[in-house]
């Protein structure tokens, strides 16, 4: 039999070998890759831990508020603290953020008051009344749409010759199957747009497991088709997530174009608070495996070893955060009542006859 023109198996395994998972801190908090240890001061390391603990408390309190009916849509984040907060830690205030709906913790860290995040969740327009210095748009609901928009935003930054400014955006393993995710990466590569794309691979798109999304052995390799760098990183390791994100941002700022980062992470809880029960599609083994890899456990061990963190410090932070969140929820309760006439006024900058007539009609109703 004649030799086949190409060895497919060798081809596939060479692709997989090109996307190894970057790790610095193993699950026991030990440094396994000193060479690429990021240059973070002790204060910065502590700040990163504070943000991750803060996010865990935000998750816990949000779940509780949702149970009490005081939140609307909420996508739990427990387990993804390193993937979310350590990546965000590498960006600057001036960078533009296009979040997915699970990326509320980073949005708050980027400058959205917690009370407004709650209002967004409840479906109140005040939740989107962003402070002028918050460079972000509200969380995207259409999975993948944020990738093409972030690309356009970054093309604009490049056109406007904004120095030291990039765009960053996130989707999930499910989102990686969307055409928009490829289109975003492909356009960004073609325009050399300064954008950092994240696929937070938390194993499940609601209930559909990662292996049913794609035959691709990594999601990072989807970058190759767009001709841009792709990196797979241990998404439970804050130091590795920070290090690869920092490198990606530097690369983009230097004019080299976009980067895709796949964070291997886990959502410990349900997809959302709208009745999802993860035990329907996940074995107990899976929870156990990932909970041992909890980013807070390993980073806590690492910092305690260095004498930078203590149980007492963490307890104080938890109490303080709980109080802040309680206040934010109260503040959200004070938001003014929304009016249909205001919505009509917001539809257009220059409205037509239909809108003008309807404003009159609703204002008359509302003044009764």
């Amino acid at each position, binding site marked *: 039999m004649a030799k086949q023109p190409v060895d497919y198996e060798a081809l596939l395994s060479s692709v997989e070998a090109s996307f190894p998972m970057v790790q610095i801190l193993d699950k026991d908090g030990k440094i396994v890759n000193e060479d690429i240890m990021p240059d973070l001061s002790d204060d910065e390391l502590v700040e990163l831990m504070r943000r991750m603990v803060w996010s865990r408390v935000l998750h816990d309190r949000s779940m509780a508020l949702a149970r009490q009916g005081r939140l609307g849509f909420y996508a739990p984040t427990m387990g993804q603290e390193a993937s979310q907060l350590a990546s965000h830690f590498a960006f600057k205030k001036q960078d533009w953020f296009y979040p997915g709906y699970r990326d509320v913790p980073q949005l708050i860290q980027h400058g959205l008051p917690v009370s407004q995040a709650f209002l967004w969740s409840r479906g109140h327009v005040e939740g989107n009344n*962003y402070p002028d210095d918050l460079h972000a*748009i509200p969380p995207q609901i259409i999975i993948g*749409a944020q990738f093409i928009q972030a690309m*356009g935003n970054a093309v*604009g930054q490049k*056109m406007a010759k904004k120095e030291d400014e990039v765009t960053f955006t996130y989707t999930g393993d499910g989102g990686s199957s969307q055409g928009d995710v490829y289109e975003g990466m492909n356009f960004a590569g073609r325009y050399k747009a300064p954008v950092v794309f994240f696929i937070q691979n938390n194993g499940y798109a609601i209930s559909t497991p990662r292996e049913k999304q794609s035959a691709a052995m990594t999601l990072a390799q989807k970058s190759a088709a767009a001709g841009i760098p792709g990196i797979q990183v241990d998404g439970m390791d804050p130091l590795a997530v920070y290090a690869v994100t920092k490198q990606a941002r530097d690369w983009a700022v230097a004019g080299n174009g976009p980067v895709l980062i796949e964070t291997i992470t886990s959502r410990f809880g349900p997809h959302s608070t709208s009745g999802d029960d993860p035990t329907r599609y996940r074995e107990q083994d899976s929870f156990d495996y990932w909970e041992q890899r909890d980013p807070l456990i390993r980073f806590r061990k690492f910092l305690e070893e260095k004498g930078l963190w203590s149980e007492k410090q963490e307890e104080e932070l938890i109490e303080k955060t709980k109080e802040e969140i309680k206040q934010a929820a109260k503040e959200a309760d004070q938001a003014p009542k929304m009016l249909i006439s205001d919505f009509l006024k917001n539809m257009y900058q220059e409205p*037509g006859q239909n809108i003008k007539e309807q404003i009159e009609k609703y204002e008359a109703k509302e003044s009764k």
Partner: protein
Amino acid sequence: MANLTMIQAITEALDQEMARDEKVLIFGEDVGKNGGVFRATQGLFDKYGEDRVSDTPLAESGIGGMAFGLAVQGFRPVMEIQFFGFVFEVMDSIVGQMARTSYRMGGKLNLPAVVRSPFGGGVHTPEMHADSLEGLMAQSPGLKVVIPSNPYDAKGLLTSAIRDEDPVVFLEHMKLYRSFRDEVPEEQYTVPLGKANVSKEGSDVTVVAYGYMVREALKAAEELEKDDVSVEVIDLRTVSPIDYETVVKSVEKTGRMVMVQEAQRQAGVGNTVISEVSQRAILSLEAPIGFVTAPDTVYPFGQVENIWLPSAKDITEAIKETVEF
């Protein structure tokens, strides 16, 4: 004044607006060196460079996302969808994202993007090129949908669309591109969005149309002059928002109305106009409102499109029926 085709008027509007405002960017499939498949962007790549007039990858959704992000960054994107039949690939960007932005952000962030696209039947295109899909757009609050019927309007309306602070879908009927010329002023001017135009005054019946159907309506009106029927033709120019005031005023004068659209009969722009006129001017009507449309099939195979498309003859018949009622 120059004697221009509609495609030349469109190019001139783009050119002059790009010269006036450096924030205006044009992008889409083949709009660069090639000047677009209909040459709407002819010469602009050479004049303004590839940063401002750029060929995108062949992916409509990506083009829509790019327009969104550029508008957030303060640019005035003018994106081209090569044929409007391809709009389904970019529906989320236009209807799900651009249209909702001002509302979603409490009016604090607006999205001044223009979506330009050729559409319309009668030029023997392949499948999925010719459909009249303006009804899909007009049903989406937050968008403005503009359809010029002649070179003069095309230049003035496109200039307004680019300057407008809201997202505008600007639909160019392919049959109008080169079929006739108009006197078009060389200097810049605007034709306001959301305002209908009385294309021809008359006293017996009001015909409301837009896009290419305005031409057919004018032909019908001319034909009927011989029978002493005086037809007023109203060109909507903008199908969202619709200028009911101008339509109702005319119907109150003539007492009769025929609505004409190239699109199929079901749902759509024409039904909206008829419904509003019925509510606002029923007591002025002396006959049921006539409605000339294409039949409710999928856009037909190329060889039969001229049988399928509404024509001056169909309009003439509908007017006669209404007048003789």
